[in-house]
């Protein structure tokens, strides 16, 4: 692979990452009390910046069948949370020809950011699911996904 091509690949994967990660901050600071309480009751309240607005709209429109569970909300709460998510969504353009991506773990930036994680780690019962950010990102609850706060369970 020539240097130019390598540079382009790195650049492309950086651009595919959420803004906060690409700029090196890796802290997701946008917050909203309803989002935190409702989206954080069954799993980590995934930061708005991890998916584009079209994905959040689709997600919030299907909460009664949310990855196999009923996570339905009253209309007022749902409207407030969607507004928050859309306002702080990833600016990466979603392909309008494709169905909106709902699984963060299937986004290109997620796959790139986790390419060093071994198959053994993913299979560890303490990790159990790639959706379980807090298994390794010890400060995920507070939106801090920085490298120094990663502890991979043995």
């Amino acid at each position: 692979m020539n240097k130019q091509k390598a540079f382009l690949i790195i650049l492309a994967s950086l651009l595919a990452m959420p803004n906060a990660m690409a700029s090196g901050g890796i802290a997701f600071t946008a917050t909203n009390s309803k989002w935190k309480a409702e989206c954080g009751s069954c799993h980590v309240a995934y930061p708005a910046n991890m998916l584009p607005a079209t994905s959040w709209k689709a997600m919030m429109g299907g909460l009664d069948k949310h990855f196999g569970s009923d996570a339905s909300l009253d209309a007022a709460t749902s409207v407030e949370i969607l507004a928050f998510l859309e306002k702080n969504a990833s600016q990466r353009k979603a392909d309008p020809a494709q169905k909106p991506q709902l699984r963060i773990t299937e986004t290109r930036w997620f796959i790139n950011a986790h390419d060093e994680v071994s198959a053994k780690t993913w299979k560890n019962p303490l990790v159990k699911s790639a959706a379980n950010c807090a298994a390794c990102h010890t400060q995920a609850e507070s939106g801090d996904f920085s490298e120094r706060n990663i502890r991979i369970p043995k």
Partner: protein
Amino acid sequence: MSHHKRFMRHLLSGILLLAATAQAQTPQQTLDGFKQSAAETTGFQGFSAARGEQFFKSTHGNDWSCSTCHTQNPAAQGKHAKTSKIIQPLAPAANADRFTDQAKVDKWFKRNCNDVLNRACTPLEKGDVLTYLMTLK
């Protein structure tokens, strides 16, 4: 009555009303609400902790029962079956917040009954379960 006095009276009743709506109810009051609804159905003869326990620990056609996430001991911490997120104890004796907020109670029964039974729970089922949970120490 002067305008001022009338204003103060309105203000005071407004504050009292706000306090009343924001005030948490007790688990017993939540149970009384279920009892009122259940009493409207034919043949209602009161709630049963034993029936509630059986309901709580059994599956109802789907993979999950209540105890899949809330464990066989709802006075202890549970864990979400899919995400592994910790669930605080469900029994009021172990967690004073439980069954004190009607909106929250309604929200979770709606969701979880759909997951466990593919339908809404009846007032009898909810009352039985809460009666069982209230017997736990």
